[in-house]
């Protein structure tokens, strides 16, 4: 992937309607975004749909990206994840059968990290997550990587939904306290 600074320049060009920059941005980020949404959606057709919506949104709102507030890839991944999770919530509500299939899928640990992607911010987050107890850490990671709702997590962990909600919120409060503002 390109450096963060290069992505910032590409986004600035895209904000001005530069199609060539948009193509370079797509080439630099498509595999990361597809990896993120495919992991949540587990279906190539749905992942393709979300990729289209995500890049359309990026094309339309590149001007709203603020490098002071987020890194370009974090911003783009957030757009893609939100689209994917919105879609999976609609789907699972329509088809419970589909939901149970999703639940069958084992949640593996995320892939090992390429060294150069280990930013200082990630190092801090992982240090804080290391302070959570084992089960809650798994809960947060599963939620982030697989896009599971509290209900799905409750089924997976065989706990009441309210317990899951409490665990999640305690974990998030601990993370926030550890990270500071």
């Amino acid at each position, binding site marked *: 992937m390109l450096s963060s600074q290069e992505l910032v320049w590409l986004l600035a060009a895209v904000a001005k309607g530069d*199609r060539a920059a*948009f193509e370079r941005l*797509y080439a630099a980020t*498509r*595999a*990361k975004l*597809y*990896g*993120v949404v*495919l*992991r*949540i959606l587990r279906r190539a057709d749905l*992942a*393709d749909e979300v*990729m*289209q*919506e995500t*890049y*359309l*949104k990026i*094309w*339309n709102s590149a001007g709203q990206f603020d490098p002071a*507030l*987020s*890194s370009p*890839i*974090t*911003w783009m*991944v*957030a757009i893609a994840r939100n689209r994917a999770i*919105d879609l999976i*919530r*609609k789907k699972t509500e329509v088809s419970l059968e589909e939901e149970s299939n999703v639940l069958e899928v084992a949640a593996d640990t*995320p*892939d*090992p*990290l*390429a060294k150069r*992607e*280990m*930013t200082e*911010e*990630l190092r801090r*987050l992982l240090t804080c997550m290391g302070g959570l107890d084992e089960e809650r850490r798994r809960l*947060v*990671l599963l*939620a*982030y*990587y697989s896009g*599971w*709702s509290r*209900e799905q997590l409750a089924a997976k962990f065989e706990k009441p939904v*309210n317990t899951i909600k*409490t665990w*999640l*919120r305690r974990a*998030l409060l601990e*993370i*926030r306290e550890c990270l500071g*503002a």
Partner: protein
Amino acid sequence: MTDDTDIESPDLLAAEYVLGTLARNEREEAEALLASDPNFERLVRYWERRLGQLHAMVASVEPPPETWARVQARVDGAEPSSVMLLPHPDQAARVAAEGNVVDLTRRLGRWRQAAAGLAALAAALVAVIVTAAMNPEMLPAPLRPKPIEIVKTIEAPAPANRFVAVLQQNAQSPAFILTVDVATRTASVRRVSAEQQPGKSYELWLVSDRFPAPRSLGLVGANEFARPTLANYDPAVISGATYAVSLEPEGGSPTGAPTGPVLFAGKLVEAMPPGQ
């Protein structure tokens, strides 16, 4: 219950929204807040920045080559005007303030034409809304509500079953979020920032030009969630109505019509439109 279920705050709603663990209706509420409340937006950006670091551990996967062609087609097909960008909250508030006056004035006009059938209290409620929007000082002090603004976030292009309304006084203080499923005629009201007032209750009203008087949907705000039923109303009424919250004596209006000031109001917009 213990304090376990009490850890409820906009910060944690934002955190769970970013983490992705909210159910569909709660996501819709969070997205409505995101579009209307700059403070909530700040919280979401905080969590996106922090938790978003986790993406680094997801393995990249090459999408099929056709995806790029489809992305380009989508970009080519997107007229600037058809893009559903959420407006900046300030703009939304401005637009809404104007829209509110026009809409309710027109509504009042229609109601006046049907004056014979009008219940006095319904007229009073509309008058309160319109007067409050245009000139609150004209009201006697006890009836003087804070300014009401309706934030319209998204125009609904397609038939939809799920709607959301932010009931608020101004763009900085959403008080309640109403989500409605028209197909099942169910609704959920989340208290966001409305403060409990001793000896008073908040009551939710459905205001429709199909009815001579506002219809009570029950009390809201005592708990974080209320679940009013809309079973008695047809979908056109539900999706077209204005929803208003008035401050009533404890236990609700004694007359069946609003007696206290209308503090918050809003109209439904489509939740989570496709392709947004």
